[in-house]
């Protein structure tokens, strides 16, 4: 991986807060923090996996990056420029650089159009209005994906789920994006089709040198596609590192919990001991995972841990880990 180059995308202190209507008559308006102070980088040609349970803010992150949602605060910096501060013209030029693939192919294709029609619509919106020119873009792509031209004349409802998802991927690729957000792209598909889609995504990513954020709740799939993994819990990033680091050397208790729930065919897993989900406490002075954490101590209830860099690129938000400096200091102390 190109380590010395600037990251293609930098996410800095991203926060998203929703207002929740009050439940009682004279109650103060409540807020719901979907995403709290998330920061990470994505490098060129890299796949970053976002993993977490439902409601952890992984989809919100994806949607903010493609600008389907507006962040409450924080920056998304694409190729050195904040996408929220770009001029209208600049934004228009870069709009198609970041594309998204949605979860459910059944609702991601407009039923009123044929596949070809949708592709032409996409090209039209970036200014390619000539039919022959459109064909020049569409036909090679279709052939490349191993589909025939006759697909272009079909309506979405005539296709199976897997075929639809392939079309969705092609639609995203049609505009030559550099960055793709894939939001649970296989979770609505059957197992036998899932493999087709995963292979396809990996292939095109390699061939076109795309950068990607891959969002999923499935540990196996995330492991399979990602170079780096970000573990999220209740809107916060709790651990981030390479695949190897997370799966073999994961440090955060939540990562442990997730990994212990991983079921594989061959290994009979042992139960992770986690307390029942207590009330979620969002406070500047409490660790977000404390209510469920088996290791929670007084410190966790009174001080919010910061993201600590354990190894270069491996960050953990927990009181029980040491940063590199601390570890080095400790080592030195021991040596002395």
């Amino acid at each position, binding site marked *: 991986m190109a380590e010395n180059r600037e990251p293609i995308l930098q996410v800095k202190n991203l926060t998203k807060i929703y207002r929740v209507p009050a439940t009682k008559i004279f109650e103060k308006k409540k807020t719901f923090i979907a995403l709290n102070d998330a920061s990470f980088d994505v490098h060129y040609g890299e796949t970053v996996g976002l993993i977490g349970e439902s409601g952890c803010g992984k989809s919100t992150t994806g949607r903010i990056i493609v600008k389907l949602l507006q962040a409450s605060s924080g920056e998304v910096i694409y190729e050195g420029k904040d996408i929220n501060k770009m001029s209208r013209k600049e934004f228009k030029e870069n709009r198609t650089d970041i594309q998204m693939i949605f*979860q459910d192919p059944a609702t991601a294709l407009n039923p009123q159009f044929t596949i070809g029609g949708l592709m032409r619509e996409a090209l039209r919106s970036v200014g390619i209005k000539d039919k022959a020119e459109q064909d020049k873009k569409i036909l090679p792509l279709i052939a490349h994906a191993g589909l025939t031209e006759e697909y272009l004349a079909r309506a979405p409802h005539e296709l199976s789920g897997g075929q639809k998802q392939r079309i969705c991927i092609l639609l995203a690729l049609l505009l030559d994006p550099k960055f793709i957000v894939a939001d649970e792209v296989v979770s609505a598909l059957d197992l036998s089709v899932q493999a087709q889609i995963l292979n396809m995504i990996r292939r095109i990513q390699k061939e076109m040198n795309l950068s990607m954020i891959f969002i999923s709740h499935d540990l196996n799939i995330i492991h399979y596609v990602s170079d780096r993994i970000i573990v999220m819990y209740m809107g916060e990033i709790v651990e981030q590192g390479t695949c190897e680091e997370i799966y073999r050397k994961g440090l955060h208790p939540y990562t442990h919990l997730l990994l212990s729930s991983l079921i594989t065919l061959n290994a009979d897993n042992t139960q992770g001991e986690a307390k029942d989900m207590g009330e979620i406490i969002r406070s500047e002075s409490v660790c977000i995972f404390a209510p469920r954490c088996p290791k929670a101590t007084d410190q966790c209830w009174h001080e919010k841990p910061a993201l600590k860099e354990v190894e270069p690129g491996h960050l953990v938000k927990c009181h029980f880990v040491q940063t590199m400096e601390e570890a080095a200091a400790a080592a030195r102390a021991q040596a002395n």
Partner: protein
Amino acid sequence: MAKDITKKKPSRIKNRTLRKILRNRNFMVGFCLLMILIIMTIVSFFWTPYDPNALNLSAMKHRPTPIAQWGNPDVEVHIAGTDDVGRDIFSRVMVSGQKAFQIGLSCVAMAMVCGVTLALFAAYFGGWVDNLIMRLTDAFKSIPSLMFAMMMAAVFGKGTKTTIIAITMILIPQFTRMTRANVLKIREREYIQWTTLIGMNKFRVMFLHILPNVLSVIIVTASLAFSEAVLTEASLSYLGLGVQAPDASWGALLNASQALFTIYPYMAIWPGMMVTIAVLGFNVMGDGLSELLNAKVSKEA
């Protein structure tokens, strides 16, 4: 047991859409009822048994001629009898169809255009435009439609024109509510979010990508609106506030029979039946359409 249910003879009609339409009982019943009225109305433009407006003092209050006598050349045949000034009721009922369809069509067409445009405006701009439009439709909803039509009659005078304007105004909020609700629903779909991703022109999105998806709802609403238009027109004319004499309309005919129907029931029955058939036809066809197009339209929404 296995044999008899799985071996049902498949239908001869190959086209699946057509077969689906023909199999839909609601749609077909409604369609047939309306066809009767439509044919009757079209014929009335060229031919009616008698001149619907000609007074015939020698044939006042004739009861309907029995069917057995219909072929008899010596008898002046009045299928539905004559009214108190000798006009042939059946001819008048036929001609009334013109009024009903004229009012229905123009009202529904105008209301559809205005209502859908308003809804798109509301959904497109959002914010206070949306709020204002929706509050206004709410306000309209709290004035019963017939009462509103009566108010219009009080202000602008009675007659066909006022009736058309009044009914149109009644129908507009219905189209607006129905369309807006569905546009908002469709807008959340991922294929519309996709258009944002590729930076598509917003007007194009609205008209080419969203509107076709709410069309089925609009069609069903139109069918139900038609029935309401016919009903309101009839009620208004019945109260003497709608179509005015000498024009014939089913409601007006009923109004004219008001004093006499206890003695000459046929004067009321024919026009009343026609209104019922028209309303029934549009309602039932609307139900059928909503089944066929898979569009749920509730009257209260």
